[in-house]
């Protein structure tokens, strides 16, 4: 376990404070996300796209209406009035008709906008739901190694931060991008129709705008990276100091910790200021460039309209419309440049999401299955009910026959080498043989490899060399699920789930009746404390059983293993923080459970170890001694020293 933790620490430590990684191949990522969305919501997506078209179309129609209003209706009426002031009777009929037409476009636009937002909700939430589910399902299938080598905080941040940025991208950035693109194209077309020279002027100004944006983005980007780094450094420091706050108090170290904090805080402020100032400048620069573009077009357009309005056909109304287009042209371009940043952020998140999804799941080539068995006419056959006996169902492909072999609980290790990484082996040449019903104890110092050995039996990790056999079957041939079902494990770190006490015990056997739950609790000596809980078996446990003591949590874990009634038990105890009297209760529960099963125990307590059929002494990943208590004592070597060392001391100390 020590090795595993080391990997974890190093990884978590290094990642903190690093700037966001550059997104590799953003185009491919983007395509993959869109592929996701389209795969599950093709019709929805088409609806959304149609809606966006309609929305843009109606808003362009609306803008054009300004021109129609002035040129087509107001101006003629004004002309008529000037021509014949006395006999002028305004006729608003045609105008009313035109307005009705525009109103229809508007109405279409509004309906489209509504349908679009509504449909987006389903696409957005639906895609996220699927992604979440896929992430979770996939995560559950990953090997333990993945969890060892990835900080839990990092995994969690995929579910929270990365999914969140992706949500924003799907729900806001993408529709907006689409909208902007369509707007840009249609507005550009309309502008060209109205006046080519003015369009040219507008485009030049857009070029200037894009250039300035690129400059400002680059400047702020550099500072954002610095800011990200400083945030990492400061947050890391804060986390460390808050965790060690009590130590700070005990050592009167407050002043020093403030000094260091001030330094980091100041650095962060500096880079955050710069990053924000640059990115904040982007808005006003673009806005005023937009205004300048507007002014230039007004002046040139005014000059054209004034000099020979009839010849060019460029009217005041056209100018008015053009100017509106001018404004609605720079707006989407600004939006695209602003959305760009958030899209890059979301893509970085998507990259992490897909990285988890692309992670290789635990492989399982096993085909031997564990089934309930009964004996009929001297033959072991499969039973359709729980018989208390098990058999290995072995299908032979070559002969197309199925044989049944009774499950006994015989475990052998033959020259097993193992390392968490190929470079560093932690177990060397492990050879051991556990006969059915035997109790095997592992003793040795922390980091000697006791827990690691037990993690190999249930294939949490796969070995590099050697063979592990279970009832003489290579464990690689056994289906992982069946293998693990046959092994009851009480782990070193107790983990409970949110839910009632009953739910937690039932975790070992989902279909267990209430009576079975209580029987298991009684077996584990947990019944008496459960009864005293405010709501007994229905007491809710939250936060990994935070409302229970360490000993109580361990008793529940034992009850959970007991209800599963497995043929082989692995008990990896952690009782160093439990006081001696509580430990005794825990131990009694374990002892009852061990009766009649092949059991592997990791223990500190002599009473647990002493009556083992075989005691295996491990040191630095090697078996240095094995035998019964009496044999090892007689040998007067390592075990003898461990055993007597304490005795000697109790006299001399």
């Amino acid at each position: 376990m020590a090795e595993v933790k080391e990997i974890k620490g190093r990884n978590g430590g290094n990642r903190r404070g690093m700037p966001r990684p550059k997104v590799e191949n953003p185009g491919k990522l983007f395509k993959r996300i869109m592929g996701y969305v389209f795969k599950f919501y093709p019709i929805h997506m088409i609806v959304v796209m149609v809606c966006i078209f309609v929305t843009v179309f109606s808003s362009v129609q609306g803008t054009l209406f300004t021109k129609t209003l002035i040129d087509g209706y107001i101006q003629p009426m004004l002309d008529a009035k000037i021509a014949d002031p006395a006999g002028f009777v305004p006729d608003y009929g045609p105008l009313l008709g035109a307005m009705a037409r525009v109103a229809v476009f508007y109405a279409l636009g509004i309906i489209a906008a509504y349908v679009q937002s509504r449909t987006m909700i389903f696409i957005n939430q639906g895609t996220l739901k699927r992604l979440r589910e896929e992430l979770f399902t996939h995560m559950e299938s990953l090997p333990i190694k993945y969890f060892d080598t990835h900080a839990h905080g990092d995994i969690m941040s995929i579910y929270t931060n990365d999914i969140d940025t992706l949500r924003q991208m799907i729900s806001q950035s993408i529709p907006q991008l689409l909208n902007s693109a369509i707007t840009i194209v249609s507005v550009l077309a309309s502008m060209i129709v109205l006046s080519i020279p003015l369009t040219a002027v507008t485009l030049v100004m857009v070029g200037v705008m894009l250039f300035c944006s690129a400059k400002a983005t680059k400047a702020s980007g550099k500072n954002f990276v610095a800011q990200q780094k400083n945030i990492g450094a400061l947050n890391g420091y804060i986390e460390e100091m808050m965790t060690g706050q009590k130590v700070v108090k005990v050592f009167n170290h407050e002043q020093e910790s403030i000094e260091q904090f001030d330094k980091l805080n100041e650095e962060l402020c500096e880079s955050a200021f710069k990053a924000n100032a640059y990115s904040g400048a982007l808005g006003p620069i673009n806005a005023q460039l937009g205004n300048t573009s507007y002014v230039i077009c007004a002046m040139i357009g005014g000059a054209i309209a004034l000099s020979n309005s009839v010849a060019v056909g460029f009217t005041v109304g056209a100018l008015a419309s053009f100017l509106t287009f001018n404004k609605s042209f720079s707006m989407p371009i600004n939006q695209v440049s602003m959305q760009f940043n958030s899209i890059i952020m979301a893509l970085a998140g998507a990259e992490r999401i897909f990285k988890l999804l692309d992670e290789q799941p635990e492989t399982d080539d096993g085909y031997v299955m564990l089934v309930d068995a009964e004996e009929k006419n001297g033959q072991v056959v499969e039973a359709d009910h729980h018989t208390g006996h098990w058999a290995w169902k072995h299908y032979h492909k070559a002969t197309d026959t199925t044989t049944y072999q009774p499950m006994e609980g015989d475990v052998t290790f033959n020259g097993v080498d193992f390392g968490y990484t190929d470079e560093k082996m932690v177990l060397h040449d492990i050879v051991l043989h556990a006969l059915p019903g035997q109790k095997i104890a592992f003793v040795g110092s922390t980091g000697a490899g006791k827990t690691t050995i037990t993690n190999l039996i249930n294939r949490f990790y796969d070995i590099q060399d050697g063979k592990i056999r279970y009832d003489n079957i290579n464990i690689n041939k056994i289906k992982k699920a069946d293998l693990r079902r046959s092994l009851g494990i009480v782990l070193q770190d107790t983990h409970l789930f949110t839910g009632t006490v009953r739910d937690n015990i039932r975790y070992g056997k989902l279909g267990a009746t209430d009576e079975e739950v209580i029987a298991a609790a009684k077996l584990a000596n947990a019944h008496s404390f459960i009864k005293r809980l405010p709501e007994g078996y229905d007491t809710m446990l939250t936060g990994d059983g935070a409302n229970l003591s360490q000993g109580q949590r361990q008793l529940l874990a034992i009850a959970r293993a007991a209800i599963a009634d497995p043929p082989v038990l692995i008990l990896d105890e952690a009782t160093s923080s439990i006081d001696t009297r509580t430990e005794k209760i825990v131990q009694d529960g374990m002892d009852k459970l061990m009766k009649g099963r092949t059991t592997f125990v990791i223990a500190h307590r002599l009473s647990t170890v002493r009556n083992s059929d075989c005691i295996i002494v491990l040191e630095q990943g090697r078996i240095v001694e094995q035998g019964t208590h009496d044999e090892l004592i007689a040998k007067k070597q390592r075990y003898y020293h461990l055993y007597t060392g304490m005795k000697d001391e109790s006299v001399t100390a």
Partner: protein
Amino acid sequence: MLSTLLKQIKQYTLPSIVTPICMIGEVICEMVIPILMARIVDKGIYGNNMGVIYSTGALMVVIAILGLLAGLGGAYYGSMASTGFAKNLRKAMFDNIQTFSFANIDKFSTSGLVTRLTTDVTNIQNAYMMTLRMAMRAPASLVIAMVAAMMINAKVASIYLVAVIFLSVLMVYIMNKATKYFKQVFEKYDELNESVQENVSAIRVVKAYVREDYEDNKFKKAALNIYNMFVKAEMNIVYISPVMTGTIYICILLVSWVGAHMIVAGSLTTGELMSLLTYCMTILMNLMMLGMIFVMLTMASASGKRIAEVIEEKASITSKPDAIRSVADGSISFEHVDFAYNQTSEEPVLKDINLEIKSGETIGIIGGTGSAKSSLVNLISRLYDVTKGTVKVGGVDVRDYDLEVLRDQVSVVLQKNVLFSGSILDNLRWGDKNATEEECKRACRMACADEFIEKMPEGYNTQIEQGGTNVSGGQRQRLCIARALLKKPKILILDDSTSAVDTSTDAKIRKAFAEEIPGTTKLIIAQRISSVQGCDRIIVMEDGKVNGFGTHEELLQNNDIYREVYESQTGASGDADFDSAS
């Protein structure tokens, strides 16, 4: 809460004032432009006057430049003010946390404090920037555009007024309803994430019991639930944008219709109509912006409240003004001491404790989990204050000492001890900043830490990672003991500090204490009887009371608990120590 936060603006008051002024300047410039536009069309084009077009155009460019300067000023000072404000908030919190007593720290929890110092501050920083830049800008634009529209034509502008009122009412209604829904959703969402967290940390249990499919189904149900709730909540706000657009369109149509009549009647010009239509967009867009700011501030207010809590928290333990600055000796006495972690809790953790410990004595403390051993020793260096009675060190009530002096003389190795990132020497020098390398090595020798440190490739300069993850539990404990020894205290307290150290090393450490620092009063809390049986006297704690206090032999004779523990740990059922140092 607001005043607590605003007090932290401090040196950033000027930028905080300049920013909104800049923003208003920018708005004014933006508002003037449509007026000048109207002038170009009306006076220039219809007046057939090229001069007016050029002069007005030039004026517009000048105003655009002014607007740019104002905008840049706003970005610059706004950024300065908000990041500075965030810095001050962080500092105010951090500084105050340094004055916290253990009771204060317990109240907030480590992760709670970290969130407040990081995420919450970021939320406030963003909200503050938004407020400075937008909260002024949006209402200002709205009002100015409204006034400008009124000046052009009050009758037409009143259409906008109606629209604004209609939309405001609608928005307040929708937001009210939606925030309620969203609050529920986000709570559920947190629950979902918690269950993921649970699965990540308990993955071994899940896999050991082959419960992957079971967990999957559970998660899918929860995910579906979230999906339904999110959809329902978002359905509530989905019509905001269509209604908004609809209102704009209706305004445009109405203004066009009314405007056309007025132009024909001669009471409005074409240019003015165009300006009015521009203002229409400005007014309604800014209204929308106001709504967004409102939502953002509501969200930030929760963060603000959490930050203010930390800044306002009063340290529950402080030194008296005329505190005593020297500790006479290492004697300790408890006189009728009661102690409860929570003043209001009915059952005290420690009940009527009376103890006399002489300077230089070595005292063992033993007792079951929850028997309040740690609570007892925590009172000595005033990590917590007694509820009733007095604790005296060197014959003086601990509350009369200067805290720093007291804690320098009473060195505690906490049960949950922590090392910090930095070299081993850096960590050791927490005990004494000015300790020479030789002194550090001596302390390590006493704590039996020298052997493993010297085996490390970089010896005393080996870097410790955050949380000390690159040393084993036993090594960490020994380093922490060495660190405490460097203080050269009059009283040394080890709170279960050798639990991960093997018994023979444990004995060596105790032997070194007896030989090297005989004058120091030593209190040793332990689970192992072997760790305490050689002490001068042993305290047996049971259920918050002193059950026995005497030498090993005395207690074996007359204390049932002690005898029981002793017997359970020795003899046939004893606790062999296989967990030797590696």
